[in-house]
């Protein structure tokens, strides 16, 4: 299908909206009625047609608006894109991977023409037609990582692999769930995960690292993570927390359905060929509560997950103060019926809401 790109904002007037198409393909992160951290990783080998898992780098109706938002953030704070000196080759690897995947997966939107080292990149939605020399930085307007991530939805961390460890040595981070690339750059896997509650004790990070160290070229992996955001604000950065934190206090029983968003990250892991670095795209999808509950199964389940989530996790994710109001709202969409296993909406097979039961 051809994608109609939305004209919308993720700040100020927050005109961001999901179409019916985007709602039905939303990556709902709960495969059962409860949630706890786990080593939830699987191969990233496509998915049902139209789903966000189908392509290696999903492009959706928010593409252009998200790229505009990234440009605003980078103009205000260039430290959101950084690369330690030894990471330039990994930046080129990233550029090649994304250009190759996008031109193969979306030939009507992106083209890559290669003649030896002379490359021509055409990004039709963004109106870019650019010839450059691969591995020659002087032929790009900025570094290779910044160049390609200004044209690709989602944040990107690039991990150097040495001494059986991953090091966060480069990245572009403007749609993060409240962590700072500038602070975390140079840290190892255990250090940057240090603030996460419970998961260290459960041994999750040890096992996850082992898995990641063995991700092979051509065999990417993926997982989902989630949190909550008031207003469809992509840039929930610690840098700007003193500006956006106050928005968490603006929820009311009347506006919560439109204002409160579930924020889901589709995280993927790609081994890069020349640098042997690991590319970690973190793609953020937002959905308003009122759109989630339009899918009966998701409304029932989200209520149960939020209700039963351990306090440590609700605190870490920053919504413990708003949880009671969320439960009042979501409770209206939970009739107590059982839910089908798995993340899919199952609109044809799941019963409609029946609160009079």
């Amino acid at each position: 299908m051809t994608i109609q790109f939305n004209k919308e904002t993720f700040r100020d007037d927050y005109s961001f909206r999901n179409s019916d198409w985007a709602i039905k393909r939303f990556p709902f992160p709960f495969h059962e009625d409860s949630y706890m951290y786990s080593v939830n990783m699987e191969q990233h080998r496509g998915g049902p047609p139209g789903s966000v898992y189908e392509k290696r780098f999903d492009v959706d109706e928010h593409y252009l608006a998200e790229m505009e938002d990234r440009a605003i953030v980078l103009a205000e704070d260039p430290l959101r894109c950084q690369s330690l000196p030894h990471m330039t080759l990994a930046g080129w690897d990233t550029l090649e991977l994304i250009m190759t995947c996008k031109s193969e997966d979306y030939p009507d939107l992106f083209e890559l023409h290669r003649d030896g080292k002379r490359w021509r990149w055409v990004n039709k939605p963004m109106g870019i037609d650019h010839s450059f020399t691969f591995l020659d930085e002087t032929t790009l307007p900025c570094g290779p990582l910044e160049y390609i991530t200004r044209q690709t939805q989602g944040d990107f961390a690039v991990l150097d692999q040495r001494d059986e460890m991953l090091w966060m040595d480069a990245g572009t981070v403007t749609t993060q769930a409240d962590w700072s690339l500038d602070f975390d750059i140079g840290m190892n896997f255990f250090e940057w995960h240090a603030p996460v509650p419970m998961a260290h004790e459960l041994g999750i990070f040890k096992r996850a690292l082992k898995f990641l160290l063995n991700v092979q070229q051509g065999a990417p992996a993926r997982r989902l993570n989630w949190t909550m955001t008031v207003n469809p604000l992509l840039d929930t950065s610690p840098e700007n927390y003193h500006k956006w934190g106050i928005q968490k206090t603006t929820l009311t029983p009347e506006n919560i359905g439109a204002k409160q968003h579930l924020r889901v990250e589709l995280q993927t892991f790609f081994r890069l060929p020349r640098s042997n670095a690991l590319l970690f795209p973190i793609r953020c999808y937002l959905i308003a509560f009122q759109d989630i509950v339009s899918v009966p199964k998701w409304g029932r389940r989200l209520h149960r997950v939020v209700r039963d989530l351990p306090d440590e996790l609700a605190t870490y994710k920053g919504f413990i103060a708003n949880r009671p109001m969320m439960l009042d709202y979501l409770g209206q969409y939970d009739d107590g019926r059982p839910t089908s296993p798995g993340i899919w909406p199952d609109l044809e097979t799941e019963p409609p809401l029946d609160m009079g039961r």
Partner: protein
Amino acid sequence: MSKFQFPESIASRPTYGSLKSRPGKAHLMIADAEGAEAILDLAAQDAGLMAKSHVIYIPSGSGAGLSERLRGLKPAQYYEGPSYAAAVPRIRRVLSDAHMGLQVYLCGTEGLMGQAMNEATAAGIPHSAIQTEHRGSIARRMQCVHCKGITENVTTDPFVCAHCGLNLFVRDHYSRRLAAFQGVCIDAEDPGNVPNPVELYK
């Protein structure tokens, strides 16, 4: 004698040991304030050590005759600086000369150890040749995540950023690259509601 036991914390927060004399032809000791006591203890372990040692000491206003006692150890080279920043060019110069096998000893406040650690590793000294021991103040070097300014010697939580003036709470999340802990606005969700500062670890 002041040796503080830091409670168990998160994985990014550094931990410190106790200095042990190691064999080697050359030894570099960098200390501030009560860190001098750790060098005095170290010298007591090994009578031959100080004659092979270069001591760089920043008293930071700690009296108690620590400088004299350090000098009295008769190190091969002794330098006393008015501040860590003033000592940095000398530290770099000394590290640039370092031969294989140089042993580095860092002691005193976390801010001094963290920054000197970066100098040593940048100069190519392997981690296995660097030891640390915390002594004296539990003051922290804090980075404001909002304006990026560093506030030195933070002893209370919350504290006021010396650069942008925001009231920040003190996190245990630590960046070795910055040699600093992270400070985050404490009243973002309730402007003006800033709790009274309390001493760290009290």
